[in-house]
């Protein structure tokens, strides 16, 4: 079992971030905006190409035979949607959670988590496409109970609200940095920062607006995210599986999403540390804290799946047995095993050791595995639910065979994920990293002090 206390007297390395001067933070934050590096450009080009491939695959696939109306052919579109919702969609939630805990270690991480939200438009577009293959609520299991225009309109509305909120959150949280870039980079010729930063001058009133805006948009984002994931889990998976009313599933789906949201943030941290010149900002303290949270969510992932399994195991009605078979044991057994290993076992056995969590490599490897596991798990869930021929039964009578993806399915999955990533990279053109205002605000609140024979850190806790 890992403890903070062991941490306390293991190494006494003090994070360098808090010894920097505000000027250095500004310089570091504006570095990429002044001159984007070659590795950045390369990554952008590769992911943009992937995105184009994904879009082509998305368009070509129905034309060359899969057809528009066949629900099963849309399996991988749904999987991509689910995967993106669980990664780019959930990372901003991690940012909000960090803000709630009010630790100072969060300051260099927040921006990275919010940044992923820039990819939200991709799952939104995918949902708009998917909505046409969803059955109407007549005669099927549904959360909407005959609401007007359900499920189509409301699914779209929820997703749209989430997307807008995600972009708004990113914008508001990085607005002060845009103002800094406006003044420092575009002093002579006004450009995009001047347009985006508006008249932000940093008056007390404006800071209050920023503080409140970040807090309210963040809270709203979490609420919308949880709501949307609940509805999506029910629309795309539960409603299509006859007899499946597992109430834990939307929660498990959301928790899996949050876990991989932290995972992509950790990966982004590792990437920025290695290639983004943010080594002074992202140190073991950040990896330690973020991976601890990821470990906790990994444990929750297991807990939620376990409760579902054990209830069905005890229930043993034909309805439940067929669901256990279709989701876990028969066609998609190996996919589930991979997801189980990546989403639960990997975080558990890698991250339970304090020493590993203190490092950089361990959390990064675990995070990569979690993302892989999430990708596989989405395929498992969507393949299972999208290949049920008759969703109007009381209970699933025939377990369909596994859905084997074609080339276009794979291209679509990889390509669209790459496309969302390209959007995230593009966002870096207007969003500074490291986030200048948040880190600078933290600089004042840490102090080193001699305490008799030792040196201690004082952490300020303004209310």
């Amino acid at each position, binding site marked *: 079992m890992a403890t903070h206390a062991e941490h306390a007297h293991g190494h006494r390395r003090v994070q360098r971030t808090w010894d920097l001067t505000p000027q250095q933070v500004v310089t570091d934050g504006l570095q990429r905006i002044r001159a984007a590096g070659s590795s950045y450009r390369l990554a952008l080009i590769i992911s943009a190409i992937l995105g184009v491939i994904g879009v082509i695959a998305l368009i070509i696939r129905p034309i060359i035979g899969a057809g528009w109306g066949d629900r099963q052919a849309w399996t991988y579109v749904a999987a991509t949607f689910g995967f993106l919702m669980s990664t780019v969609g959930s990372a901003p939630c991690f940012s909000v959670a960090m803000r709630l805990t009010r630790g100072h270690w969060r300051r260099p991480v927040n921006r990275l988590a919010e940044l992923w939200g820039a990819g939200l438009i991709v799952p939104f577009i995918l949902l708009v496409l998917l909505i046409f293959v969803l059955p109407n609520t007549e005669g099927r299991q549904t959360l909407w109970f005959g609401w007007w225009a359900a499920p189509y309109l409301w699914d779209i509305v929820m997703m749209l609200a989430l997307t807008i909120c995600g972009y708004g959150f990113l914008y508001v949280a990085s607005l002060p940095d845009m103002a800094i870039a406006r003044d420092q980079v575009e002093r002579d010729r006004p450009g995009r920062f001047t347009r985006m930063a508006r008249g932000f001058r940093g008056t007390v009133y404006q800071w209050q607006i920023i503080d409140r805006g970040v807090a309210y948009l963040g809270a709203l984002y979490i609420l919308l995210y949880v709501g949307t994931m609940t509805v999506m889990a029910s629309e795309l998976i539960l409603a299509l599986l006859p007899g499946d009313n*597992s*109430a*834990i599933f*939307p929660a498990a789906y959301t928790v899996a999403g949050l876990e991989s949201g932290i995972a992509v943030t950790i990966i982004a941290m590792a990437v920025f540390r290695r290639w983004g010149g943010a080594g002074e900002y992202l140190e073991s303290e950040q990896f330690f804290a973020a991976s601890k949270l990821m470990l906790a969510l990994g444990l929750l992932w297991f807990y939620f799946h376990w409760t579902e399994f*054990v209830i069905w195991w005890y229930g043993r009605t034909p309805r439940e047995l067929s669901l256990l078979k279709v989701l876990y044991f028969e066609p998609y057994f190996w996919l589930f095993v991979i997801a189980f290993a990546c989403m639960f076992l990997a975080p558990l056995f890698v991250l339970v050791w304090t020493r590993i969590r203190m490092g950089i490599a361990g959390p990064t490897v675990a995070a990569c595995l979690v993302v892989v596991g999430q990708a596989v798990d989405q395929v498992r869930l969507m393949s299972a639910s999208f290949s049920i021929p008759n969703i109007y039964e009381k209970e699933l009578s025939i377990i369909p065979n596994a859905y084997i993806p074609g080339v276009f399915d794979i291209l679509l999955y990889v390509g669209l994920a790459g496309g969302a990533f390209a959007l995230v990279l593009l966002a870096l053109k207007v969003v500074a990293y490291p986030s200048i205002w948040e880190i600078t605000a933290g600089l004042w609140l840490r102090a080193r002090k001699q305490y008799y024979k030792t040196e201690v850190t004082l*952490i*300020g806790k*303004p209310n």
Partner: protein
Amino acid sequence: MQERHHLPEDQIIRDLLRPVVYTSTMNWVAFIVLGGVLTAFVFAAGWMFYWGVGVTGLNRPNMWGFMIVNFVFWIGISHAGVMISAILRLTQAEWRRPVTRAAEVMTMFSLMTAMTFPFMHTGRPWRTAYFVFPYDFWRGIWPDVRSALVMDPSAVFTYLTGTILFVFVTMIPDFAILRDRSTGWRHGLYRVLALGFRGQERQWKMQTISGFLLAAIMLSIFVSVHSIVSWDFAFSLDPVWHSTVWAPYFVIGAVHSGVSAVVTLMALMRWLFKFDSYLRPEHFDAIGRLLVVVGSAWMWFFMLDVFFDLFRQDPVDLVIMNTRFFAWPYVLLLAFIFIFGYFIPVPIWLFRRFRRNIKVMFWTSIMVNVGMWSERYWLVVPGLQQKYQWSFDWTSYRPGPIEVTLIIGSFALVGTLLLVFSKLFPPIPVWDELEGQRFAGEIQVGKRTVPAIVREF
């Protein structure tokens, strides 16, 4: 945090030990009132032992009633202790210091109280006692591990043992403080309990590390306990009980009611023991913020449970959901759940001003537990009334006077145990409070003095 001020150490010790040495008038009144209710409790329990379960209002489909509801409720309250002390220890939240002991002790006593209920509730309690300990191994009949009722005692006993040990370990330094300041039988008691603790650096280090270790382990137990309690219901095939979400839903509900109960207890301690300078508004503020998150998560799980019961539109579930939503008294209970459990307290807690008002916090926390008691009743009892298509056998359930007495008595039991505890041991950890003083510092930022805490890394 402006109200945090440095107090001299001997004053802290004196203040925090006051309940142990001084019994106020209110304290006596509380003892007498609680003792009276407790007598009724003992009488009711004896009556039920003598005559059998027939004295309750239970009947054929409704084989479980008030006592099981109350069991779930007290198990829920017991989840506060570890929620507060484990999570706050792990996150090193500074405001945990005055709260942990009360929360853990409440865990201990509410668990003990909770356990009496399934025991009394069985048809042959003497055989139940025999089943639990010592098990009659000589007959070669072992418990059926497939039964949730075997998992349940194992989980509750684990939790109780763990809690007692956890409380004991964190109390050793306080025993030492008491040992050095007491005479007579008390001195003997504290001397034995303190185990010769001297406050060596190494002992303090162990104290700190064990705080984290035990917190992490207790957190794992804590999640399992209420999950298993929920599985007592969810493993059955009863419509609406047989729900996959019940385990986490019960856990988060337990945290909601338990943390609220800690708020109630804190307010009472502040009032009864005059701990005004230790249980400060900032502590209520922090707990209030925690409760907003916990309460909202609970609401989400509540909604999941309700919506996905209706999801399949299965007539078997719909009948019971119909009863729950529209039939007396469940419609009233539902109103309690919504209004008292969430829609009054949580919006109030959104405002800092109210979070820092002890009276408001006290009453809202009471409200939450009214709502949460109703929730347990609402969840458990209707599930049995209208099972499947046998409308010939559908019956409602009404608790008998004995059951009501037992339920009221259980509150008195926990109250009395807590009061007795505070007469023997300090209800706020003295050493933890002293440590908090030593680890407090200040940072000057411009004209503002920001309170700070010392971290060793």
